[in-house]
């Protein structure tokens, strides 16, 4: 697996999260200044220097559950709150969207262009905040520094690492179904027409050469697809035409986006497998979370700004219903921690968790030996 995958995964998923939140804030008619504050707070937390430093260290990808904990924390970095059902739906949408983008990338390297598309749009959200803009530009610079020189083979490995992360995820998204880019079984449709990737020839030609390298014969054949040459290469500069549309905001139209849980039994079986088997990486995942969340600087809410709840569904009843009917196997329960033998680590994580203030929810008074699981439950 590539150890350079996490920044790309995190930034793209984060970008999708912001697109969805922006759309829901508008759909729920949240006043402009509040909506802007929420997005600004989340973006500024995401691109915080210390957090980015941790993110860019060479490391493996951890589980989807571990990553979800980070996003849940991020989503609550401001005055907005999400119920479990809405957070679940948000994470489903984020992951399926990025899975789609990775699958459809023409070249493995194009995942970098997808990332830049996300960053470009994020910069649009925080147009009026020069400090945060600077943070995003700095991240841009880091991405260019680390990924600019990677070979095609290394990008192929990154692509494979990402696809393995998304394996067996087949949640149906109404927008994808409607646009016919996803089938009813949750699988994405791979197009066989359109421009070929930059650096690839349109299929259909065989050229034969002699010993001196001179062409002596050629045959044309029908390829089966309907491809055209690539118009131009997307720009990897700070500003530029990315050419690729993957990673741009597909929620800019004001339409509700629904998810349906995929009903294939094969998928359910593999999910159950994952949650039952004791996770040998549990300790490492805790360390990973401790490092990343430790780098997150959550601004303590000050002043009279009242919080509000965002709903990813169209009505409260729908949200309740979704919570009740979510298949057990697809629930993003907290990480299954077997025995937190590493006392020091778990204490440190407990301390960090303690710094996060939760709005509107009184801390449950528990005994001194708070176990980590309970603390994370409170998020």
């Amino acid at each position, binding site marked *: *697996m*590539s*150890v*350079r995958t996490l920044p790309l995964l995190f930034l793209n998923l984060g970008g999708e999260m912001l697109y969805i939140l922006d759309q829901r804030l508008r759909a729920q008619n949240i006043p402009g200044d509040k909506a802007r504050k929420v997005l600004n707070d989340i973006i500024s937390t995401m691109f915080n220097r210390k957090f980015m430093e941790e993110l860019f260290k*060479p490391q*493996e990808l951890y589980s989807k559950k571990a990553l979800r904990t980070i996003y849940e924390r991020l989503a609550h970095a401001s005055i907005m709150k999400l119920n479990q059902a809405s957070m679940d739906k948000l994470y489903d949408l984020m992951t399926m969207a990025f899975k789609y983008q990775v699958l459809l990338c*023409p070249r*493995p390297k194009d995942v970098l262009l997808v990332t830049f598309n996300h960053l470009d749009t994020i910069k649009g959200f925080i147009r009026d905040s020069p400090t945060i803009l600077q943070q995003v530009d700095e991240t841009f610079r880091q991405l260019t520094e680390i990924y600019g020189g990677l*070979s*095609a*083979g*290394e990008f*192929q*490995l990154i692509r*494979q690492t990402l696809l*393995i992360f998304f394996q067996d995820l087949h949640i149906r998204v109404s927008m994808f179904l409607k646009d016919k880019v996803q089938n009813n079984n949750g699988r994405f449709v*791979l197009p*066989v027409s359109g421009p*070929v*990737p930059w*650096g*690839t*020839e*349109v*299929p*259909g*030609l*065989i*050229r*034969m*050469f*002699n*010993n001196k*390298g001179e062409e*002596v*014969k050629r*045959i044309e*054949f029908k*390829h*089966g*697809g309907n*491809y055209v040459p690539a118009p131009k290469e997307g720009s990897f500069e700070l500003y530029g035409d990315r050419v690729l549309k993957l990673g741009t905001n597909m929620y800019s139209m004001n339409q509700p986006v629904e998810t349906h849980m995929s009903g294939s039994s094969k998928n359910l079986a593999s999910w159950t497998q994952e949650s039952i088997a004791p996770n*040998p990486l549990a300790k490492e995942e805790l360390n990973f979370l401790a490092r990343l969340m430790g780098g997150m600087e959550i601004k303590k809410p000050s002043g009279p700004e009242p919080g509000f709840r965002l709903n990813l569904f169209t009505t409260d009843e729908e949200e309740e219903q979704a919570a009740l009917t979510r298949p057990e196997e697809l629930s993003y329960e907290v990480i299954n921690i077997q025995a937190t033998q590493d006392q020091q680590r778990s204490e440190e994580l407990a301390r960090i968790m303690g710094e996060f203030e939760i709005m509107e929810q009184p801390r449950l008074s528990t005994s001194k030996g708070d176990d980590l699981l309970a603390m994370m439950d409170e998020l």
Partner: protein
Amino acid sequence: MVAADLEGPYEPGVRRADLGLQVHWCVLPFRVLLVLTSHRGIQMYESNGYTMVYWHALDSGDASPVQAVFARGIAASGHFICVGTWSGRVLVFDIPAKGPNIVLSEELAGHQMPITDIATEPAQGQDCVADMVTADDSGLLCVWRSGPEFTLLTRIPGFGVPCPSVQLWQGIIAAGYGNGQVHLYEATTGNLHVQINAHARAVCALDLASEVGKLLSAGEDTFVHIWKLSRSPESGYIEATPLL
């Protein structure tokens, strides 16, 4: 079915590169072995699929923290089994007619990038005939002659894209590339004789039906193609015709 369990001690300090296992039946003169590669090493089993006869742990000593460590690319050549690694080294194992007394006899240096695939074919009888090709992430191909010591005969440079799959048949090297092309080279000279714009995405795999000279290519563009390989009766140069 072999239950591929991760043998060997779990070392918390060693970076795990959870690459999927690769599996290959290695047909040798007197036995058949099942070889598995992973991020930690190489396992070899008897043909019954459960008697492990050899375990080779990968040496990650030289790897920088940003490098993934793994073995990839397996082929049998005479009584040798060759396995590629993340560093570009190709490990050559000498396999006895029976028993577990397998020895790492050579480490071939020819590549600087991770090996992607290895192809072999039985020596055609003459002395200087190439019988092994190794490919890597940069698209470089190395052509070898097997023996008590393997000899590097020629190198065919890449052109900026990985070569995920390679085949060798009657002195013809077939190579599939990340840009969707399939190239056919003369193994003895390294000259490119056929260039096929075969796929609109990376070529994932090649397979060859050796008795009829048909090459199959599969690509990430969802297509599978079949090509007939031949030599021109006049010039002897390699040719290819599309069949599917």
